[in-house]
């Protein structure tokens, strides 16, 4: 039994990075695992299920300092970044945030990221932990001559997520009330200077807070002093985003599939699409624009399996005649829905839900139904 235990044991011998909150996690009794080179909390004594539900009902605090934070500085920074993403950055208004994707020459996705216009000719980027070294090099190599690429090594990142996140932050920084989803503000919280965005990865209202390492622990303690707030680990972070239907790099997104094939057309700004004001002009634009105009043979959908057995990543999806029609990109159990939930990449032609589909789990066929994402309604604060 217990391949899981073996997995945990294996992590002990590997050289790893830690975040500024590492000791706090250990003191809180967290189960630590190696994730993207960092020794990170996968869960706390509450456990994944209760941490997940706590975030949906109250407020969860996540250490996401392993993610990469990088500033692009200079008059040409916006234009330079636009040459790497199929997203409108030039017209990104002051203190607004936008979701973007680094693409490659084949139209595949190198990483997904958040971009915030923080003024003074500066953009703040948050990229995935597992991709960050490659992203930093990519930025330096491609646009390093057009703007300064400044990696913020000394900054921590916290996410405060959940229906009570707004109330928790407002008690510490009342002006945070004015913020709506995907906007940013520099706030002083308990005397600490922070860059706060109203965003996150749980499907709930919430914030991501960038803070200098020197004051990071003080800030975390400030949030945790509110009884509505609990530390939440990476286990629940994953089940929360899965229920919210949010893509995860390496699962729904990779270098082999274009954003169109990953059902992220909504993320491609009008200005950069075939008829847009600044159409194309990013790596792989010819492929991606062709995919937008002519459609693609596969897409990302939600699947609801019958019964209780979780259907995990990599499981094959077949039709009644056992033809292979897709593959699970993320699968697990949804603590809020109380059922297994699945995101899969399947053939577009069978994605309308009229054909009977099955997941092959341990040689058994489990019926699955194509459903609309997300599994749990997103509760963003739009004002």
């Amino acid at each position: 039994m217990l391949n899981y235990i073996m997995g945990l044991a294996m992590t002990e011998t590997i050289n790893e990075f830690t975040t500024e909150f590492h000791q706090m996690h250990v003191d809180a009794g967290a189960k630590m695992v190696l994730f993207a080179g960092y020794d990170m909390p996968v869960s706390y004594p509450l456990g994944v299920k209760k941490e997940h539900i706590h975030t949906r009902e109250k407020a969860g605090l996540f250490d996401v300092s392993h993610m990469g934070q990088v500033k692009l500085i200079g008059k040409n920074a916006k234009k330079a970044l636009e040459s790497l993403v199929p997203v409108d950055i030039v017209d990104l208004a002051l203190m607004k945030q936008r979701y973007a994707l680094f693409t490659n020459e084949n139209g595949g996705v190198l990483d997904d990221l958040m971009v915030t216009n923080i003024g003074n000719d500066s953009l703040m980027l948050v990229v995935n932990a597992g991709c960050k070294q490659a992203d930093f090099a990519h930025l330096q190599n491609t646009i390093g001559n057009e703007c300064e690429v400044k990696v913020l090594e000394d900054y921590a990142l916290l996410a405060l997520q959940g229906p009570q996140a707004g109330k928790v932050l407002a008690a510490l920084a009342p002006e945070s009330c004015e913020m709506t989803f995907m906007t940013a503000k520099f706030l002083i919280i308990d005397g600490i200077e922070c860059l706060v965005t109203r965003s996150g990865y749980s499907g709930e209202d919430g914030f991501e807070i960038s803070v200098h390492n020197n004051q990071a622990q003080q800030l975390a303690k400030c949030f945790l002093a509110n009884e509505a707030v609990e530390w939440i680990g990476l286990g629940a972070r994953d089940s929360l985003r899965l229920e919210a239907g949010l893509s995860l790099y390496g699962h729904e997104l990779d270098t082999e599939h274009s954003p169109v094939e990953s059902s992220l057309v909504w993320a491609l700004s009008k200005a950069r699409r075939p008829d847009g004001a600044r159409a194309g002009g990013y790596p792989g634009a010819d492929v991606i624009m062709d995919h937008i105009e002519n459609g693609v043979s596969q897409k990302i959908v939600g699947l609801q399996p019958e019964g209780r057995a979780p259907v995990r990543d990599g499981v094959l999806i077949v039709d009644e005649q056992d033809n292979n029609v897709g593959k699970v990109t993320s699968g697990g159990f949804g603590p809020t829905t109380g059922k297994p939930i699945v995101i899969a990449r399947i053939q577009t032609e069978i994605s309308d839900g009229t054909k009977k589909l099955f997941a092959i789990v341990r040689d058994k066929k489990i019926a699955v139904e194509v459903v609309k994402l997300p599994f749990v309604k997103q509760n963003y604060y739009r004002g």
Partner: protein
Amino acid sequence: MTIKYSEDHEWVELTEDDLVTIGITEFAQEQLGDLVFIELPEVGDDVSQGDNISVIESVKAASDLIAPVSGEVVEVNERLNDEPELASEDPTGEGWFVKMKLSDVSELDGLMDESAYQKFSEE
């Protein structure tokens, strides 16, 4: 009443001459986290020591229950089908997995007693 333990973190309780009840230990339960699904073997299955006889799914991962002894499955804990959390909440009581009729009682001698297991799981 003898309880023995496997290196795979299972307990085996000898209830009659050749009948045992099998489940996972408290240590295993803690490591696995919240259990959401358990696939049990069929009554009547003949299993050999080392066979995968059950699948245990937590919120995050799937693990196998490996038969700590050989024999025939004579009863399974049907309650785990709808309440897998029983194996988290009461792994050594109501969260038992299967009852087996041993084909070779001497296999029990190869398993650990409680003090040996405690030392084993602390390592």
